[in-house]
């Protein structure tokens, strides 16, 4: 279960503090598919970054599977992220010098769980339809293939929470459908809680729970 209580984020700028997120409370039950929607600049990516333990909130707390993320130290939080949260960013977030297989195995290797990491990565890539691309470098793959590698990497640690921030914004419609299909399958088949950040209302319509963010707050 994902719980946010009184979550706020204020950025210090040259023109003074700017509140990106203001006192957000939300709950997403375990295994659910939730979509966070809002216009550009509404604060939805900032909200996702705090939920994912990537950006420290100015106030409030985030609990993932009962653990208060921001009460952990930096290294403990990094370990928690590696073991419990998968990310799909809105850009092709693969390390260009690593093959697809190593990119997928990376979270396990960094977390010191190298035993069987590559076998697990290979199985996931097969599952994503990339069995023939295990040794391919990112530059040798299409945008859709790269995004599928990213999804495989997000799932390699069997996370309880999968966060996807505009995962299809730069893809064509057919590839978008493929990618969303993979994310939804992970949610249904694995029971992974899926939180999708999007400004695409059609995609959000597929979610079981829609959270609308406007001006840094959750709209009622």
């Amino acid at each position, binding site marked *: 279960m994902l719980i946010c209580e009184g979550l706020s984020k204020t950025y210090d700028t040259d023109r003074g503090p700017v509140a990106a997120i203001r006192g957000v409370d939300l709950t997403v039950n375990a295994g659910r598919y939730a979509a966070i929607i809002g216009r550009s600049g509404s604060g939805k990516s900032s909200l996702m970054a705090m939920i994912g333990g*990537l950006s420290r909130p100015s106030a409030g707390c985030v609990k993932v599977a009962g653990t208060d993320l921001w009460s952990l130290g930096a290294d403990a939080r*990094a*370990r928690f992220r590696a073991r419990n949260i998968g990310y799909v960013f809105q850009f092709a977030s693969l*390390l260009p010098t690593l093959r697809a297989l190593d990119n997928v195995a990376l979270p396990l*290797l960094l977390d*010191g769980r190298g035993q069987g990491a590559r076998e697990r990565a290979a199985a996931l890539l097969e599952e994503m339809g990339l069995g023939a691309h295990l040794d391919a470098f990112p530059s040798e793959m299409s945008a859709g293939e790269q995004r599928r590698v990213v999804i495989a*990497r997000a799932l390699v640690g069997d996370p309880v929470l999968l966060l996807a921030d505009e995962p299809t914004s730069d893809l064509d419609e057919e590839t978008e459908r493929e990618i969303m299909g993979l994310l939804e399958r992970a949610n249904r088949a694995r029971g992974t809680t899926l939180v999708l950040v999007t400004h695409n209302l059609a995609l959000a319509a597929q979610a079981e729970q829609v959270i609308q963010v406007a001006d840094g707050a959750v709209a009622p």
Partner: protein
Amino acid sequence: MADASGARLLLARLALQNLGRRRIRTGLLVAAVALSSAIAFAGAVIMRSIESSMSVGFSRLGADLMVVPLDALTHLTAALLVVEPSDSTLPADLLATGKAPGIARAAPQRVLRTDRSGIGTHGESVDLIGFDPLDDFTVQPWITERLPGAMGPRDVIVGSARTARLGTELVLFGTPFRVYGKLSATGVGTHERGIFLSSNSLLALAPAIQTQTGTLPPMLRPDRVSGFLLQLAPGARELQVRFALLSHHPQIKVVAGGSLLTGIRQGLSALLSGAVVLVALMFGSTAVMVGVLFSAIVSERRAELGLLKAIGARRGQIIGLTVLEAMMATAAGGVFGVVAGALLLRLFERSLVFHLTQMGVPFLWLDRLDMALSAGLCLVAAALVGMVGAFIPSLRASRREPYDLVRGDG
């Protein structure tokens, strides 16, 4: 354990691959460090070789000052100071009680000229020179051949004009001695045919000498010496030391050696120290350059570092990755630098050293172990330059929130 080493191996691979991504930049970094390392390695070896050559060469030049009794004769050559044998003596503790500042080393000598030592068949005159092997810096540097081991109480060193072979027996006043070493030609008569033994050994001969000659020469009394040879401390002025000595001991004569040579000795010592500082500064500036470069590299790779943090890389791993990358590049530079430095040394050997040797100026290279140590030190220094240079940028990156890095903020 195996998993942790797997993570380290992965980071090492990533670091190596990162270097391969920007080959020209990596090449320039390696070249810059190689240049510094080559200069440092070749410079260190040459400096230390010069230093050891100097220590032999300058010690062969003798003392800076000599302290003798007021009425003693002295024989001053351009390179060496020799006390002429006489019955005038000084107290053995003269410099111990009133040692003037500016004296680095003081070597007492006892010089006895005798024709009754038993050497030769026709009452050959010979100078027996008693010195303290521990304090000596004017006799032993001239040894060209010696027996293994330290000089013992029954050992003597003979001048170059003597034909006695090493290990053979030489009888002085009825006491057998072993020829332990032989001096090379000094150009000074006293030394060419002299016999050098420790002061204690010479004093031990006193009863036999008294029996043979009927008198006890004054320099054979334990509390007397013929004179002292002095070496000035770096920075000490000859005139000041001489004045200080004379003001305390009016009964002595202070004779100066070649003041030009003293100046060269002191100046070269200062120059060598300055060169060491320059090498340190060069490595320091390379470290700053690596720091600037890695600030730019970290800035360029913010998104990647943010991604690594997002998927679980800990602070130590982020620092390790960046520092390792820098260390790999600078250590590679160190390896190339040592190789280039070795080539420079070869060039130096075939040019300047060859000419010096032709001119009869000795140039003593460091031995292989010291040279290998210098190479190793250069490699370590080069790797440290990478570590120091990349540490601050990587530390800063490791402290940033992953989201800020991914967005490319800051």
